[in-house]
């Protein structure tokens, strides 16, 4: 089996475990400990931040401008508008800064 196929199938199983696991495991407890819940609440922002931060550090002005615009856009607009405008800023920035 190719590495790609292996990644896809194992990734699918791992993902399904997260989707069914909370119900199978956490629901056995009458209530979730507040600290566990606070920690779980922080999971998405924490994980996704780590995917941006190191890349942003090593990027250039076009990329920084796009990220700043994305943050500003998020305060007022939805994801799709944010994405399209930031991508436009990125492309324009790369034309200017090379």
């Amino acid at each position: 089996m190719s590495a790609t196929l292996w990644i896809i199938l194992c990734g699918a199983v791992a993902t399904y475990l997260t989707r069914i696991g909370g119900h199978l495991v956490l629901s056995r407890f009458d209530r979730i400990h507040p600290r566990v819940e606070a920690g779980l609440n922080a999971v998405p922002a924490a994980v996704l931040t780590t995917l941006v931060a190191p890349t942003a550090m090593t990027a250039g002005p076009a990329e920084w401008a796009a990220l700043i615009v994305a943050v500003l856009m998020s305060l007022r607009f939805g994801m799709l508008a944010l994405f399209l405008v930031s991508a436009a800023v990125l492309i324009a920035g790369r034309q200017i800064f090379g």
Partner: protein
Amino acid sequence: MSAEVISESTSAAEFWAGVRVGFPVTVASAPFAVLFGALAVENGFTVAEATLMSAAVYGGASQMVGIELFGQSIAPWLVVLSIFAVNFRHVLYSAVLGRRVGHWPILQQAVGFFVLTDPQYAEAERKGEAGETVSFAWYMGMGAIIYVPWVIESGLGAFFGSLIPDPHAIGMDFLLPIYFIGLVMGFRTRAYWLPVVAISAAVSIVAFNVVGSPWHVSIGAAAGILFAAALPVRPGKLEVGPGAQEGADL
């Protein structure tokens, strides 16, 4: 009219009500399905593999992370671990949703949890909180209208993505960080969001330079999560950010 007929017509109505709730997510996620397909091919997937990944994993952010790391030639098991880490948030959705759908037969639960995405969770929880029953028909109506186009559009994106002449010029290599920061901002109303993001960012940058990729993901995330767990507990319940509700992340 027999009770069975009434129940069937109710199920059909519930299904279409679910479809209506899911449709905005279908529209909002379409560009990201196409983007995933195009980036997957650019990172070395075939069109069939890109389509299969959307069908089998069905998690936008994790699929993007998967192809990003695959493109960097990272060991397959680490790519799988990273997919697991990004999707780990579903554990909490699953626990909360379980309270709403515990009355479904086991097989329906097994299918229902397969399509549990951020917007799916958000809408089901909103419906449950309003005091309405979360029926299997309603839930699967929403799931189907998001899932089926997601898979098809990924395949289309992969097919047409292979025709793009200069990916760098249109910024394709940096579209994922933009997408990820949009998701991060979507969670900004959660307790301790800013310190969690600041700590995860700082620790992941240090880990990236000291330990290397992809460990910066687990290490940086762990720092933010442990910080949030150690702080005084703030009353409040699980919220899903607007980004997730609009289906930017499936």
